[in-house]
């Protein structure tokens, strides 16, 4: 039996597989299908200070081995989260990551203050949501804006702070380094890649916002490159994601420098795929005579 246990931001992850933000709700629905406590962690649906109804119009669009989404951060708001959803999530014996979005610095700061007193294990600061028109995006594109944001958040944050990077950043290496310097204790990447689809019969963009976020196996090779770049640019640990659909994919991210990984779109392809991935990772390590997953983190 190979060891899959990893320490990340001072928390023990029983395995490196975390359900990705926005693809797993608050775990409740998937827990009807399998015990989500078997996962290393769950990253919550992206939360905002106030509840949000999200975007109008088509929200999902399939592409060749990819998925575009424009959910627009529909969520119950932080107050509801802290009084209700967090308690559901806490029942599962796994790490609870609160994914926090926002349009302005104040949104982030007020959000963090609320989460400070809650039971979440890690805050994942989402400076990269591509589906909000005003503001949200810029935080994730320019390294100097990201630096200022993370620095301010770090100043008041009482929880381990992981910053989620956007693949739309001007330079992933510079962005990663800026966030580290500003006090991020870990980085997660990638969020979805800005993309477009057109309904050629209607002669209109498919999404009301024109662009939407691309995820899934199609983006994996790009995500892996970015995780490798980020890992080379910083000393802090990394949570890698983007298209992971198999143990092989997960191991690639880990070898490229991720300590833990998130699985998003693949949950839609096969509801219990995370369990397959955990099982197959262990088998891979065993077959290769690798006794501990920690031995291969970042070996490339």
């Amino acid at each position: 039996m190979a060891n899959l246990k990893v320490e990340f931001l001072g928390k023990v992850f029983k395995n490196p597989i975390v359900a990705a933000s926005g693809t797993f709700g608050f775990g409740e629905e998937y827990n009807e299908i399998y015990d989500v406590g078997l996962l290393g962690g769950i990253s919550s649906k992206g939360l905002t200070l106030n509840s949000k109804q999200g975007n109008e119009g088509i929200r999902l669009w399939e592409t060749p081995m990819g998925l575009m989404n424009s959910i627009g951060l529909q969520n119950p708001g932080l107050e509801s989260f802290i009084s209700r959803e967090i308690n559901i999530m806490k029942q599962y014996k796994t790490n609870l990551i609160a994914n926090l979005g926002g349009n302005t610095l104040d949104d982030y700061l007020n959000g963090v203050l609320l989460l400070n007193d809650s039971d979440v294990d890690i805050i994942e600061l989402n400076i990269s949501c591509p589906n909000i028109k005003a503001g949200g995006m810029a935080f994730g594109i320019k390294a100097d804006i990201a630096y200022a944001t993370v620095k301010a958040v770090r100043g008041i944050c009482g929880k381990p702070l992981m910053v989620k990077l956007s693949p739309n950043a001007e330079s992933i290496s510079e962005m990663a380094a800026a966030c580290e310097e500003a006090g991020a204790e870990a980085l997660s990447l990638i969020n979805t890649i800005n993309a477009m689809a057109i309904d050629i019969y209607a002669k209109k963009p498919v999404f009301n916002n024109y662009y939407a976020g691309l995820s899934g196996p199609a983006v994996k090779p790009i995500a892996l490159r970015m995780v490798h770049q980020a890992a080379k640019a910083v000393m802090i640990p990394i949570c890698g994601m983007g298209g992971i659909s198999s143990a092989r994919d997960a191991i690639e991210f880990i070898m490229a420098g991720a300590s833990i990984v998130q699985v998003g779109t693949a949950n839609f392809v096969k509801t219990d795929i995370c369990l397959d991935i955990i099982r197959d990772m262990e088998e891979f390590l065993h077959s290769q005579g690798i006794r501990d997953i920690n031995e291969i983190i970042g070996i490339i």
Partner: protein
Amino acid sequence: MESNPMMKTSITKILENNRICENIFEMVAASDIKPLPGQFYMIKGLNGDYLLPRPISVHDYQDGKIRLLYRVSGHGTNQISRMKADDEVQILGPLGNGFDVESLNGKIAIIGGGIGIAPLLYLVKNIETQKPDVYLGYKDDTFCADRFRPYCKELTVVTEDGSTGQKGYVTDFVNISDYDIVITCGPDIMMEKILRECGEKNIEVYASLEKRMACGVGACLGCIVNTKDGNKRVCKDGPVFSGRDLTV
């Protein structure tokens, strides 16, 4: 309308996958969980070059076998239709709320349009109190209409081109005011018309809705419909909605 007593992902061999007409197919597969009428499954062939499973309603269920009636309307359903007996298929379900058949009392009209008739057979078979009147509208080919006959009081078949049954739109042949309850599934334009008319006449109405889906279980918030009570998930809070709640 309590939902999903149980559901699971299974990988199973297709028992049958037959063409019914033009581009309508029927798949039969084993499933040990008895679905509620109106529930659906997320279906994916193991070797398809499409990413997401496709939502397909239960058309019938008997002796541990589900029947799915589906139309080839794009790339994914095209590939599903090319599968043969013994090929492996991934099935998640039953999903969604389904119809609360026990609450259906009174004179019932069931109105299906096109492939929207798929979920209605299993519903009709499970209405116990009183046989409903069934109205089925088609463009031309009138597939599977005969399957409804044993379970309904009256069956009205309508085709747009008049090739079988009455000629015209199915909605023109229903006198909504004759019924206590109306249930519909079909093209948006047809359902909207019925919802509006029932609303005006204050008649209880249920519609089974379709939205693009990713997770199928209520987690991704991709399949939202606006209701009077805010956003609802078609896959989890639906696909069956009461006209009272919809904003049409």
